[in-house]
């Protein structure tokens, strides 16, 4: 599925919730679905700092696709990461250099991408693009 097809699917899944707590419940469940990551992954090198919650991210190129691993110490942040990875994981660097990320706003979580939230998510998206740019130029060389 394309980036946009998955985004549309998430938006549809969220459309059934009319209560905030139901939404959070879903996000928490999504977080729990994220593959368990070794504590050793939580190192400075992978850390994207946020004052409120921490995010760890790494990306590796395998068969022309970037495989991301990500984690957070806060569950809701982790749940949103899981949603982001559903959309952005296992894509070619080219796909990740220029994409329109609209589902977060559509499902009402835009506030989580505000710089003042300091939860690391905005930096994580930037970092994903940085990985894409780096791997893209590597492929082209």
């Amino acid at each position, binding site marked *: 599925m394309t980036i946009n097809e998955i985004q549309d699917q998430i938006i549809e899944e969220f459309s059934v919730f009319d209560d*905030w707590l139901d939404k959070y419940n879903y996000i928490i469940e999504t977080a729990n679905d994220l593959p368990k990551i070794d504590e050793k992954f939580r190192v400075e090198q992978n850390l994207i700092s946020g*004052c*409120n919650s*921490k995010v760890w991210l790494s990306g590796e190129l395998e068969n022309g696709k970037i495989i991301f691993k990500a984690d957070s*110490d*806060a*569950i*809701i*942040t982790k749940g949103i990461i899981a949603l982001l990875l559903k959309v952005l994981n296992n894509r070619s660097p080219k796909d990740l250099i220029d994409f329109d990320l609209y589902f977060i706003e559509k499902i009402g979580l835009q506030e989580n991408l505000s710089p003042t939230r300091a*939860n690391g998510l905005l930096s994580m998206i930037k970092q994903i693009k940085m990985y894409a740019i780096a791997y893209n130029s590597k492929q082209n060389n």
Partner: protein
Amino acid sequence: MNLDVDKIREDFPILKQNLYSGQLVYLDNAATTQKPISVINIINEYYLKYNANIHRGVHYLSEKMTQAYEASRKTIKNFINAEHAHEIIFTSGTTESINLVAFSFGEQYIKEGDEILVTQMEHHSNIVPWQMLCERKKAKLKVININTFGELFLGELDNLLTEKTKLLAITHVSNTLGTINPLKEIIAKAHKKGVYVLVDGAQGVQHQQVDVVDLDCDFYVFSGHKIYGPTGIGVLYGKEKLLNEMPPYKGGGDMIKSVTFEKTIYNDLPLKFEAGTSNFIGAIGLDHAIRYVSNIGISNIAEYEKELASYTSIELAKIEGVKVFGNAMNKSSIISFNIQDVHSFDAGMVLDKMNIAVRTGTHCTQPIMDFFGISGTVRASLAFYNTTQEIDKLIEGVQKVKKLFG
């Protein structure tokens, strides 16, 4: 309880609004307080009728505004019982007040090898300016530690105050733990060794009576917006003698007597420290905020808040898995806690959707977080307009958080 809280709440229109699914429960008063209608109205009125720059014009409006600005200085002087109105310097807030002292006091009094003492419970604003000063002057920063109750280890104080110590910078009330420090005793000890004392009153002045003469502190600083006044206005109280000896912090208009390219003569106190156009409307708003709390009476406020805080602590303690950080004997209405296995950020996100405003994270006090080995807390900070019904909603919210993440 002596307060008619229902009537008080009428003075704060913002508290009546509904958020996602119900009425706002505002428990983030240590970050900023809401403004009574009298403050909002006076700001409006001065912009509508009297706006003109102070200390400048000969015209009617400028004169009127200057009088109101200087009247605010007098209100503040009386409120904290300073000896002179010119010992009250208007700044943009606590942070600027501390930076002003760190620069100006530092220029005059600090030299290589000197020591500055802070505590482990300081807000970053009362750490970083001193670190910067120490770097500039090759001085040394030393720290008074805290115990697990969140109280200062005062047994260490005598050893930490050495002949090299020039200044102690200490908070009146911890913005994270709520601890009220025994200032009088600490200041007396410092003075005995010839050490000056700056008190960060950002969380103190709105909750208890402050008498700078009785405390005998050399500097007391606070912010307007945390005492029901507008943002962008704050206060530096300093003893006349020190303020006179300290060089100005910023150069500009209003802080000079005469300027030639060869030499500039600085103005007298307080204007020496008020370069540029001051936030004069902010000062007038602060004047009315202080009048508002004075009318209710700080001791009434303190008594009510103490009771509400103890109700909160007791109700929180009833919930299994909730841990409160900061259990000092003498404590203000700030309650920091965590719910077992729940990140403070997650808790705050869910409470938000239940219309409850709390702060989460490190509260700009990373050394406290390091001490307790935690990444953050949920902080409920209460004001005199909060009610037990609101605390019940908080408790209900905490229980829901526990269930959701459990």
